[in-house]
């Protein structure tokens, strides 16, 4: 803790360090600069003592927590000045702290970045900062070294913190430091999330950004961002606006849940296409919207659809973007059927009897084959988009700092991408390692047993594969059945830079969570785990397929609590 005490003028004497006092009290520094006080000492004598303002630092130096000053009376050599700058400090309402800067630490490594605000401070451990390429710093320094001068950091403090003026200190291992006075901008939480993720996706790295971005966040930022995002997701799904169109109080065969983001128009397209399907009267739609800004046109469309198509439908509008997982989970709570069908807004039936075929599958096949299944999806050009998913891994070695390290990133691949539409090996019913969230038919009881979609992922990506892996771990293999759909991939929503940043976090998170499980017989297009090999020999749906029980190995879940965030 920063030491606060009432000290007599006699005792204060040489213990008072003008610079430390101004550093610990940046508002005083401003007041002195403005001429309101002669000095920090002047302020202390007149007000600071009474206010109990801190004037010296603790003797103990702790990493990731408040650092107190040493013995100021001891004679010491003035440290060298570190070269660098802090470009930005942004703080969000709920305690997200985002910093960007650069430092010349090619020989003398950065040790920490310390921020001192009135009444609070924080130290970013350099090991937990993302290191980035900064061509502008390279140019300024005339450097040709492949050194990442840039850095960024993110910590979620999970408490309200005032922004404003702060003293920032870049501290090198040698003790050299550079001090800056910066103003920390206070932003809304979701704005800070967008900025931090957008930055992550738009900066430069030495090496392949696909890998390097993941490496950059794996020590701390990834976990911090996941925690921050989970808080936002919880807030987004809190008290949604819900409106029902058409009949209410009925039980349906299935509830089609469609998560919307940014565009309302696919609602009327899906309503139009599905309204012609025989049997659609036994289905309901639940549109869950992650974009409150389109609430008005969306509700208008829903009213129009109710008049024109008459499909029973609920519209659930979240107060902000809760992400794919949280949005679908909350929508499932409004389902009035024993089955949830997760569907993208740009997915449409490819045949006139699609609803009937889907219903027939549920009635004719054993639960083992229908508790969780997907379907072949087709491009608008007629070719197969994909028919099930499997896992692969990208590995790249690194020799930074003369140490050999290896970065592994799990990759989700698709069976039959671009294949001729009738390719039997892809469209035949079979168990697959995973199915896409663009279309996923799940028994509601099974969905609930699995805990729904994991809500840790940022915005959306990997939740589908994650759910399938949870299902496999719980004893049910995902299946693929031949109920074909069109999928205009990616046309149902808009994608921005922060979504790319979210993908980086998700890529790290998915690998971190499931690498060990996938290595255990689930890798590649022909996974060796029991059940898949058997299914490869099955040419037709087999109602008697046994339930498959996999070794119980839980995924690794991350939390910022695992990491060294410390705040005082």
């Amino acid at each position, binding site marked *: 803790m920063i030491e606060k005490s009432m000290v007599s003028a006699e005792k204060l004497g040489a213990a008072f360090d003008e610079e430390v006092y101004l550093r610990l009290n940046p508002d005083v520094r401003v007041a002195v600069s403005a001429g309101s006080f002669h000095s920090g000492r002047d302020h202390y004598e007149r007000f600071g003592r009474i206010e109990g303002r801190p004037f010296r630092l603790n003797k103990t130096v702790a990493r990731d927590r408040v650092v107190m000053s040493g013995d100021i009376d001891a004679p010491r050599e003035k440290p060298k000045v570190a070269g660098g700058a802090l470009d930005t400090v942004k703080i969000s309402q709920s305690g997200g702290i985002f910093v960007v800067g650069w430092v010349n630490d090619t020989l003398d490594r950065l040790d920490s970045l310390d921020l001192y605000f009135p009444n609070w401070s924080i130290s970013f451990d350099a090991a937990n900062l993302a290191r980035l390429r900064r061509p502008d710093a390279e140019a300024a320094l005339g450097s040709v070294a492949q050194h990442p001068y840039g850095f960024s950091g993110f910590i979620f403090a999970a408490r309200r913190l005032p922004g404003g003026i702060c003293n920032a200190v870049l501290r090198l291992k040698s003790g050299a430091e550079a001090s800056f006075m910066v103003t920390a901008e206070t932003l809304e939480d979701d704005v800070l999330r967008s900025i931090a993720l957008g930055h992550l996706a738009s900066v430069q790295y030495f090496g392949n950004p696909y890998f390097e971005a993941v490496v950059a966040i794996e020590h701390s930022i990834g976990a911090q961002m996941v925690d921050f995002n989970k808080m936002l997701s919880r807030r987004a799904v809190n008290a949604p606006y819900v409106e029902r169109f058409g009949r209410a109080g009925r039980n349906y065969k299935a509830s089609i849940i469609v998560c919307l983001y940014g565009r309302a*128009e696919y609602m*009327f*397209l899906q309503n*139009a*296409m599905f*309204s*012609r399907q025989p049997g659609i009267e036994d289905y309901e739609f639940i549109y869950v919207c992650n974009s409150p800004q389109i609430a008005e*046109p969306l509700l*208008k*469309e829903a*009213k*129009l659809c109710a*008049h*024109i*198509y*008459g499909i029973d439908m609920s519209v659930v509008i979240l107060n902000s973007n809760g992400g794919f997982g949280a949005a679908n989970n909350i929508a499932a709570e409004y389902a009035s059927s024993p089955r949830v069908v997760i569907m993208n807004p*740009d997915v*449409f039936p490819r045949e006139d009897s699609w609803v009937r075929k889907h219903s027939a599958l549920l009635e004719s096949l054993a639960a083992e084959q229908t508790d969780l299944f997907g379907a072949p999806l087709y491009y*608008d*050009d007629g070719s197969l988009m994909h028919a099930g998913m499997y896992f692969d891994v990208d590995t790249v070695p690194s020799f930074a700092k003369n140490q050999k390290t290896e970065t592994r990133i799990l990759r989700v691949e698709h069976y039959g991408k671009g294949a001729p539409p009738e390719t039997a090996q892809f469209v035949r019913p079979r168990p697959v390692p995973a199915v896409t969230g663009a279309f996923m038919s799940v028994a509601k009881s099974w969905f609930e047993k699995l805990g729904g979609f994991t809500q840790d992922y940022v915005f959306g990506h990997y939740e589908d594969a994650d759910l399938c892996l949870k299902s496999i771990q719980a004893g049910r293999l995902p299946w693929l059945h031949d109920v074909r759909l069109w999928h*205009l991939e990616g*046309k149902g929503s808009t994608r921005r830079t922060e979504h790319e940043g979210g993908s980086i976090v998700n890529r790290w998170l998915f690998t971190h969570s499931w690498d060990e499980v996938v290595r255990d017989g689930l890798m590649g297009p022909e996974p060796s785990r029991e059940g898949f090999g058997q299914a490869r020999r099955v040419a037709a749906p087999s109602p008697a397929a046994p339930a498959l029980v996999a070794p119980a190995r839980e995924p690794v879940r991350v939390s910022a609590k695992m990491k060294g965030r410390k705040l005082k």
Partner: protein
Amino acid sequence: MKILLVSLYHPELVRGGAQQIAYELFQGLKQVPDVEVILLASIDHAAPALFKSGARITGFDGRPGEFLFLSREYDYAWEKTANVQLVESFKEFLQLTQPDVVHFHHFLTFGIDLLTLTRRVLPGVKIVFTAHEFLTICAANGHMVRRTDQSLCSRASAVRCHQCLPERPPEHYFMREMWMKTHLAVVDRFTTPSRFMIDQFAEWGLPREKFAHVANGQALAPRRALAASTREKRNRFGFFGQLVDVKGVQVILEAVALLRADGFTDFVVEINGDNIQFATPKRRDEIEAFMAEEEQRPRDERNVFLNGSYHHDQLASRMARVDWCIVPSIWWEIFCLVISEAWNYGRPVIASNAGGPAERITDDVDGLLFELGDARALAETMRRACTEDRLWDRLAAGIKPIPDRTHMVRQFLDVYRDGKNAARLAAE
């Protein structure tokens, strides 16, 4: 039998072929015993004074049976309105009027999805849809002219449509086709004013057996032999229509330049029409530059005269000033009412050899056809028309009777009643 005619615009407010025919039909059906007919014609904000506060559907100028649909919030990308109250008013109008037949003469400004709404509100109603162009197939104004090279388009597809309108991805046009076909599926009977359109729609995937050919009929004044028919020279040409790109007036101007360059100047072209503001800037500049230069010439050296717009009542006098009528359209001109009007005044037509004109005109029997868009071919045809002895008399004598309103009404009544005569209509 109660019939509701749904018309794109009211011809009293906005001129155009589709609304003119819808109104001809309305007038004709009013004469038929045991038939009650209602006209619901759209207007948009081109007539703001008619948008009564809070109203979505109103009467029109004290005319019995005529109503205005006050279109708004129209989405041209998906051809639908986003206005809930407007849709609710249409629904209520159907419920109040309870027609036996709803005959859509267009969907533009109403929304293609109102076809589905009509079926949902009145499950037993007969829905008839008359295609006045190819807007259901072609997002480029329904012209089916490729914007890449101005050639005629014979087949729409996601990629080809994207080439014409690259601001949207191929998937949009894939969806647009599904969207259109979903709503067209509720139609009981389609009619087209020209037979070639049936082939186009059938190749696009609509059921051929649902189609009938019903020519556009008009209640024109009795055919008159105008004074022009006694002239020695047949060297006066007239253009009647809008000065927009697809109507091809620029082909005439280019042909005029070619004839002049060849030293042939003993002819006159009179251009009747307006709406040049709807031409593309490039085309507008070309036409205006040509006319500006033309006006600088001594009057006896001028070949082209721009007469401006005309009211239907002025048609006889405008026709009297010419011997030939030129239809140089560079799209699939669907039917071409101008041909009917020219024929009604005994004027043979020189037309592009595609679409409705090619179907209606028999080359060298009742008119002359030239290669679509080919100014040199038009120039040679004009020169022949001016110089070949007795050609005009022979072709004028070959002109067929024009489709009249009474015949059109009878054909539509066959379509409305039970469709038993569909095969005959399709063959006619």
